[in-house]
């Protein structure tokens, strides 16, 4: 989310809520003075003990996904997704470059926002976690057994992929959509070259449904595929969540900028009292697809997936998508009027309540799914926009929680009838009784909370226990470290009647949303090594007897092994200036947590970190004659410092023969 659009000078005054929520939070920081020692006990995970929850925080503009333990707030891992990662070579090694290919070429970065754990029957099932790329629209799937990115699919006809990734109850679909509408050229599948002032006429939004292959017997990692796109009016589609239980079959997306402004949006897109939640009936869309009520648009998009037997990523390129027009598929979508420039939209565990965060309104709008269905049945329609009926506000609204807080953004659920809402402007989390439409508790957070997260808090069965505030502004929370600061998260106990602040911890990049699940659900399934005998990498060597160097013209392949604590070969001669050298290094260890690194002098690529049983490749083009060292970058044993080698590079055309070896003179 964009904090600038929120800090509107007039907003606070206009809403006119009392001084209660205004201005700075109270002076004393952090855990309530009274409960410091009991708070410490609640988050203390003794040395050698494990956390109760795995939590997955998006990395925002670092394009990664962070794994934290809760309640300790320990950082357990950084998973590179859409950004290259010098730490292990992701995006630099020959095997992983394909993961970051798009129709716009190799893209080494993106902006991740909303991780979503896979679900079965609306419950978190511990198989995968999805996450979106906002800038060059893509969706990734990360396997929870290896905690590595296994698949990335590009979304055509889209920009600013923000209402993503949200899933349906059985992970049938993952959503994507346009926060930035685009001038789609139906003939070419590219963006049209048009005057920006023609926005209202030329720009369209799309809501994309990605089908997920849930067949447990399907071993391929290419599990996602674009099922269809719904062409919608050119508003800004912001966030989403799909129905569950009775509302299974529907997904809901907020929109703002129904004014269709194309400049100074913070003013021009804040005119309407209400914008819309778009309700999409995807079961209806499936029916329309079957009846042939769709168009095929040309569209170039990459689909990349990583095969962890071949230890290599592959790309397929799609060339068309099915597009459904609401005018031709009656009942596929409705608009629910919602105040005001709503941000998050969240469905409660029962599937009945659809709660938005009307970020410029102090009232929290709670819609009712059953009322919506009745309104559709009774045709309580205000008007129709491009084939999408706008239902009457009163006909779908359960209630507006009056003066809930200032700047409500997102909601999560505890499964006990309460909704927890983050309030950006008043820097607090509030707890509301959904049925009674009544705020029952509130707690200040530091500062300016964006998303909030309860483990399983957007599923049918929340695990509860904690809510995490993902704060946007850190300022004085930690020791000062210059102008650029890490963002801060706060852990809050929600087991009691009153929320209790437990812990602050710093997070990396800008975590937007997060998800969490009990460690017991997956910790015993997590993979420790890759089995060497299953390694099908075409350049793998599984024993030192197979190590060798092969020349093909001016391309040289080095088939190398790494084990504590030597490379084989560790002396290589006969490389010439003008050669392209590929070091294919197989780590032949079969023990947990013994990676070896590989780096070579002067290479523009960073090191690669090779896991036990894995093969990775770095490309090296030496520019000048000389002898160049390479070495293991990961302290692997007492003799790690001895884990080194030399490559001799001779001038172009010299007759130094190609030789290699270990423990002998060449």
């Amino acid at each position: 989310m964009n904090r600038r659009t929120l800090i509107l000078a007039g907003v606070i005054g206009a809403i006119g809520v009392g001084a209660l929520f205004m201005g700075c939070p109270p002076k004393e920081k952090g855990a309530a003075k009274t409960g410091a020692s009991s708070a410490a006990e609640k988050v203390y995970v003794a040395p050698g003990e494990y956390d109760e929850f795995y939590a997955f925080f998006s990395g925002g503009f670092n394009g990664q996904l962070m794994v934290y333990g809760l309640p300790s707030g320990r950082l357990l891992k950084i998973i590179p997704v859409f950004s290259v990662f010098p730490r292990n070579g992701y995006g630099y090694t020959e095997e992983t470059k394909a993961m970051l290919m798009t129709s716009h070429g190799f893209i080494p970065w993106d902006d991740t926002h909303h991780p979503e754990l896979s679900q079965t029957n609306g419950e978190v099932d511990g198989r995968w976690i999805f996450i979106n790329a906002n800038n060059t629209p893509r969706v990734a799937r990360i396997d929870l057994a290896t905690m590595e990115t296994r698949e990335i699919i590009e979304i055509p006809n889209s920009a600013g992929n923000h209402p993503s990734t949200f899933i349906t109850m059985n992970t049938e679909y993952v959503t994507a959509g346009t926060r930035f509408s685009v001038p789609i050229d139906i003939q070419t599948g590219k963006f049209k070259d048009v005057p920006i002032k023609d926005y209202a006429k030329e720009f369209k939004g799309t809501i994309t449904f990605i089908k997920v292959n849930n067949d447990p017997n399907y071993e391929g990692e290419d599990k996602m595929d674009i099922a269809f796109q719904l062409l919608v009016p050119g508003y800004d589609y912001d966030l989403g969540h799909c129905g569950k239980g009775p509302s299974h079959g529907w997904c809901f997306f907020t929109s703002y900028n129904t004014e269709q402004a194309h400049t100074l949006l913070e003013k021009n897109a804040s005119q309407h009292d209400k914008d819309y939640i778009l309700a999409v009936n995807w079961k209806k869309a499936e029916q329309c697809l079957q009846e042939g009520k769709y168009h095929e648009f040309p569209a170039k998009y990459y689909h990349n997936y990583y095969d962890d037997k071949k230890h290599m990523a592959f790309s397929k390129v799609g060339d068309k998508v099915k597009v459904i027009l609401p005018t031709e598929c009656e009942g596929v979508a409705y608009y629910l009027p919602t105040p005001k420039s709503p941000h998050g939209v969240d469905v409660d565990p029962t599937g009945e309540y659809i709660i938005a965060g009307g970020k410029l309104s102090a009232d929290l709008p709670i819609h009712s799914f059953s009322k919506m269905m009745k309104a559709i049945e009774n045709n309580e329609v205000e008007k129709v926009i491009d084939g999408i009926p706008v239902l009457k506000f009163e006909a779908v609204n359960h209630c507006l929680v009056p003066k809930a807080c200032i700047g409500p953004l997102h909601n999560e659920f505890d499964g006990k009838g309460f909704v927890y809402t983050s309030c950006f402007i008043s820097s607090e989390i509030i707890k509301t009784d959904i049925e009674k439409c009544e705020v029952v508790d509130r707690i200040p957070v530091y500062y300016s909370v964006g998303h909030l997260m309860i483990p399983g808090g957007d599923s049918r069965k929340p695990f509860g226990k904690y809510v995490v505030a993902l704060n946007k502004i850190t300022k004085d929370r930690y020791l000062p470290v210059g102008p650029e600061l890490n963002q801060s998260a706060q852990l809050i106990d929600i087991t009691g009647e009153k929320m209790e602040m437990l812990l602050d911890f710093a997070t990396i990049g800008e975590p937007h949303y997060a998800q969490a699940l009990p460690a017991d659900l997956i910790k015993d399934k997590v993979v420790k090594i890759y089995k060497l005998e299953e390694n099908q990498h075409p350049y793998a060597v599984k024993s030192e007897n197979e190590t060798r160097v092969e020349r093909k013209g001016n391309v040289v392949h080095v088939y190398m092994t790494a084990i504590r604590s030597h490379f084989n070969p560790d002396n290589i001669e006969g490389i010439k200036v003008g050669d392209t050298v590929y070091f294919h290094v197989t780590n032949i260890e079969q023990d947990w947590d013994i990676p070896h690194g590989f780096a070579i002098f002067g290479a523009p690529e960073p090191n690669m970190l090779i896991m036990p049983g894995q093969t990775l490749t770095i490309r090296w083009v030496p520019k000048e004659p000389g002898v160049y060292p390479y070495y293991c970058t990961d302290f692997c044993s007492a003799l790690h410092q001895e884990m080194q080698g030399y490559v001799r590079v001779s001038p172009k055309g010299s007759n130094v023969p190609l030789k290699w070896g270990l423990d002998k003179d060449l």
Partner: protein
Amino acid sequence: MVMKRLPMYLLPILLVVGCGGGKKSESSSNTTEQKAQQTATVEQTQATAQSEQVSEFGVGPIQEPLNLPETIDEALAKKGQELFDKKGCTACHELDKKKVGPPLRGVTDQRPPEWIMNMIMNPDEMILKDPVAQKLLEEYGVPMTNQNVSKDEARAILEFLRKAAKEKKN
């Protein structure tokens, strides 16, 4: 940097007040598995300090005598030879020459077969607890790696090593 600090003697008192008693015991109750792991770590540390009593079979899954026949199972030995290569042993061992680890021809004459299988399957613990393995570590300086070898695989490799020993004698 001069700062107003609390006098040192006040610290213990503050700590006692701050920590609010020994309530922790309940919440630190662990799964048995974790407990076992922790105990193992503790034992390991002690073992390095004072060499523990271990059987002549060493430490590992083989604690019953194997009672091997004199004759060599040729098919099994052949499988063992392949595994010796596939499981990464050749990265550190040759039969007749020191590499990273000791030459292995004749090792079956020097050590009980049970000990050899434990060394193959459980080297990390062996070098911490078994006096013979500890001596070898002292000599070679590099700890042998755990290559995740199963019992059946270790048995096949043992047969290969037994065959290799016989070949030398002939």
